[in-house]
């Protein structure tokens, strides 16, 4: 086998990145993203292992249980590509690829959930909702632009970082400062959430409350309602129950002549 064939180039990284977009396509409770990971890494394994038996055993190794945050799965894919390359070329035959996957998937899952699902998504969504309810029709495009300009760049960037570092998670956290980003996004999202009741008198007509009261009183009532729901939520309950409760309360108020 020519050593040249054991090199991983930009085309391989692009191929794995594209396949990584489907990492959850066959998500199941038992194995979660196992098939997705194997599917994404398969072209690289085919290139690195020309011996059919070795290729099959490496591919089956990657079909075992795997689950992490789908964007940061790119980082593990990059790191595994590097280790498989070192193993196949003989530089490090004892590379513990499975150990690396196992050690990274849980912490990166928690980190990714916090950064992307718990911080970036609410940040972009709160901004978009605040704009829509005050009359901006293009806010959905802003939402997609804000979210994906960060998501796609990071998803591609961590794949390359993973490949270059071979799975050095300390380097990943230091380079991208994920925890700091998550904290800042959460705080700014909270500030923008306060804008929603604060702008209540300027909401678009379909959402506006037709009451004969000063604007500041309308805003204060909106804030009181919001904080009241926050207080109730502290006692527990799902969003579905709260929405059903709100619907019933509105009907009761209508029949009681309150509205």
């Amino acid at each position, binding site marked *: 086998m020519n050593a040249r064939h054991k090199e991983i180039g930009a085309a391989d990284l692009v191929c794995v990145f594209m396949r990584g977009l489907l990492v959850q396509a066959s998500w199941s409770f038992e194995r979660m993203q196992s*098939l997705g990971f194997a599917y994404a890494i398969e072209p690289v394994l085919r290139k690195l292992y020309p011996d059919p038996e070795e290729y099959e055993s490496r591919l089956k190794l990657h079909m075992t249980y795997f689950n992490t945050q789908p964007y940061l799965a790119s980082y593990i894919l990059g790191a595994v590509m590097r280790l498989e390359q070192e193993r196949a070329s003989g530089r490090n035959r004892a590379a513990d690829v499975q150990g690396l996957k196992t050690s990274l998937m849980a912490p990166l899952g928690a980190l990714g959930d916090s950064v992307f699902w718990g911080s970036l998504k609410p940040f972009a969504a709160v901004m978009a909702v605040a704009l829509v309810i005050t009359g*901006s029709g293009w806010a959905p495009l802003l939402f997609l632009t804000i979210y994906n300009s960060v998501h796609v760049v990071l998803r591609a960037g961590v794949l390359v970082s993973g490949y270059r570092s071979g799975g050095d998670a300390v380097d990943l956290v230091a380079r991208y400062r994920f925890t700091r980003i998550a904290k800042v996004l959460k705080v*700014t999202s909270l500030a923008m*959430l306060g804008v929603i009741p604060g702008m209540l008198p300027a909401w678009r007509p379909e959402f506006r409350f037709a009451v004969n009261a000063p604007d500041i009183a309308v805003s204060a009532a909106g804030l009181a309602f919001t904080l009241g729901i926050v207080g109730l939520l502290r006692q527990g309950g799902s969003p579905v129950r709260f929405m059903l409760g709100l619907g019933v309360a509105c009907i009761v108020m209508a029949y009681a002549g309150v509205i």
Partner: protein
Amino acid sequence: MTFVDPHIVLSALGIAIAGGLIGLDRTAVGQFMISQPIVAGPFTGWLLGDATTGLLVGAALELIWILDMPVGSFVPADSTVASISATAIAVLGNPGAVYVPGIGFSILLTVILAPITMRADQVARQFNARLADAAQSASGPDLRKRLARAHVSGVGVFFLKSLAVYLAFLPVGIVAVRLFLAMPDPVHRAMALFVKLLPLMGAALAARRLSMKAVDLFLLGGFVLAALMGQVFQAPALVILPLAVAGGLLGARYRERPS
């Protein structure tokens, strides 16, 4: 206009297919957030010739489930099905001008059906386990093909799951909206109020998850900023939101300052 109006039947079928494709973004393909209510709602409305209804549905529902994260084996309520169904039911059940009470009723109806979407998602994921078993049992030259086939079939499973849910929801919803139009006036007033309160409830649900405090200072700061700038200086949301973000950034930096 009858329920079996061919235009409505074809529109509902088209939305079921489009909804199935948009829903792939939730788990199976990419996660570019086109499946979020703030995008999926207006897009569905645009397909049906009434983007405004979709925009209102999207803004009302976006923050409700925004922080219900798909962590581990937890399957959150399907906000994509809720927003697309509510938009389609509101538009097809009462074609013509935007009717806010009809939108409220459509949202309430899809919220009642939310547990069904969660169950459907669980069934799809259980079925995917069979795909993984099929791929795992292959060996030799077949392994690569079986892996690819099983994994990509998962996309089909998620699509068919959503398609089936829409095909069940939309006819029921359209009939229900027709019945709703004949209901007494207090019910219509109640549904109009329900829609107006949903963005505030969404803000409360998001705030509860973003901060452990009953009254968060950043939220209050955003409120004061919006009330002051909006009501004293008549500033639009496009000016207030960047100020709220800047305030959040400064606050985060101040909070991290060593004491």
